């Protein structure tokens, strides 16, 4: 099992969600986050005052998957979230030890 964590541009969320739904992904967690990478922030000017905004808004998607789905999922995210411009984000693939479905006490693949 793997946990796929994707940081994407906020306006790409709908496209990514649709692409993942097309693969039969049954659940995900979405969080609004802030951060910076190579894109860096931007500058805002209010009258005489200039402020650098370091952290830009991004969306973080977390999906727990069985190993057989990981490659296709990552491919779908990369394809649907890409604009080709700096700041498109990243996908992290993390090994997942176990999953528990709270309602039924199921463990492992059955709980995904």
């Amino acid at each position, binding site marked *: 099992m793997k946990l796929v964590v994707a940081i994407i541009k906020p306006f790409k969320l709908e496209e990514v969600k649709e692409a993942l739904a097309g693969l039969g992904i049954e659940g995900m967690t979405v969080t609004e986050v802030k951060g910076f990478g190579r894109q860096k922030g931007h500058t805002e*000017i*209010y*009258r*005489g*005052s200039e*402020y650098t*905004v370091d952290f830009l808004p991004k969306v973080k998607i977390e999906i727990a998957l069985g190993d057989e789905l990981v490659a296709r999922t990552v491919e779908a995210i990369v394809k649907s979230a890409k604009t080709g411009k700096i700041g498109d984000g990243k996908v992290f693939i993390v090994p997942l030890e176990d999953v528990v479905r709270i309602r039924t006490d199921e463990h492992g693949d059955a709980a995904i």
Partner: protein
Amino acid sequence: MTLRFSFVRRTIWLCLVVVLCSLPVLAEQAAPSMDQRVAALEAYVTNTDPGKSLTGVPGPGHNGWMMTSSALVLFMTLPGLALFYGGLVRRKNVLSVLAQCLGIAGLVTILWWAVGYSLVFGQSFKGSGIGRFLGGTEFMFLRGVTSAPNTDYAFWVSQNVFAMYQLMFAIITPALIVGAIAERMKFSAVLWFVTLWMLVVYFPLAHMIWGATGMMNGAANAGAAITAIDFAGGTVVHMSSGWSALILCLIIGPRIGFGREKMAPHSMVLCMVGTGMLWVGWYGFNAGSAVAADGIAANAFMTTTLAAAVASFTWGMIERVFRGHASILGFCSGAVAGLVVITPAAGFVSSTGAVILGLIAGSVPYLFVTSVKAKFGYDDALDTFGVHAVGGTMGAFLTGLFATGAVNSNLAGGAALKNGLAKLVTEGGLWHEQLKAIILTLFLAIAATFVLAHLVKMVVGLRPAPEIERQGLDLMEHGEEGYIE
């Protein structure tokens, strides 16, 4: 039967006595002739003295416009200025700005009722040494201020309406100061400072410029020592508040983290909404300052529109050219600067004058809030000095260059003929008188604020504890949060 007869007889006698006694009175109060009645109606249309036949009667149209104007000027503060300023502070301090505006509205109303109106627009000090600086005591607690017009100021507007209209100016002026010390002054200190400042700066200054016996009231006081003109408050409102704001913000010092931490506006949307309300309300401020629904008001309505629009567009375009973006705050700042600059001139200049004033208003304050402020490093948080002091001073001076009797007969006749103002307007040289008024206003605002701010600092202290300032004034001073998550 006897009883009844005697009652009738007595009644007849009584009537006779009453009629005989009132005959001389009736002869004196003979019904006005048709000519007099027509002349009185004409006086209503031309906003002049109706004579005896309509004494003590307000004119419905003029009164209607002045009540509308009063409401518009209050709308400039509540919620116009409150939102304009409120949007420009950080979210942890938005309520503190609203509280200061609301607190000032109530406090100044009480001061105005008790002594303010009388000290500004009374005349009982006339002839004594202080008559040129303060009005009098006869209207204290609004005694005798009724629906009948006070013909020293308006033939057709109820004095109670006039008093409320002028009150709205007295409310917004100290509220403007709040912008310079935003996010870092104790609420109690704001209220104490405003109370003292109204008594020492505003009431005397408003009397000197607008009071019938005021020493700088060139347009209406035949005995004015300085024949300056100020239509709607370039000196009284914007210079006084703007220069006082600079001194107060220097004494109180910069906000914690100023120049290091991000202090960007928390809501440009609120700021823009407030700006729109200020602009609309300013029609009451400027066109209402004719104290009549007459031709002078009509001219002021036009000049106000032109100056505000030109200045807003100019500021935005300067930003577009030199920085690449025309910002919302740029358009808003330009509009307010244009309104400030046209304020003393609105009823005295033509459309051309208004456009020129608008161009200057959109560019000079821009330099002050960007370059000059950065160079000197004072923390005029919301640019009360850069916009109101700079704009008000320029407006007062430029009024001296652009005023024309063609749009305002008060510059060509009446008191203006007696005190020499009319000559200055036609032959030039009015700017010299304007400069005198500017210097006197500057001196009063700066010196008084310096003393009063130190006084308040000694007695109640100006600043909250650093941890209160860090946490935000909303929660710590008012026990509320602007935005609940």
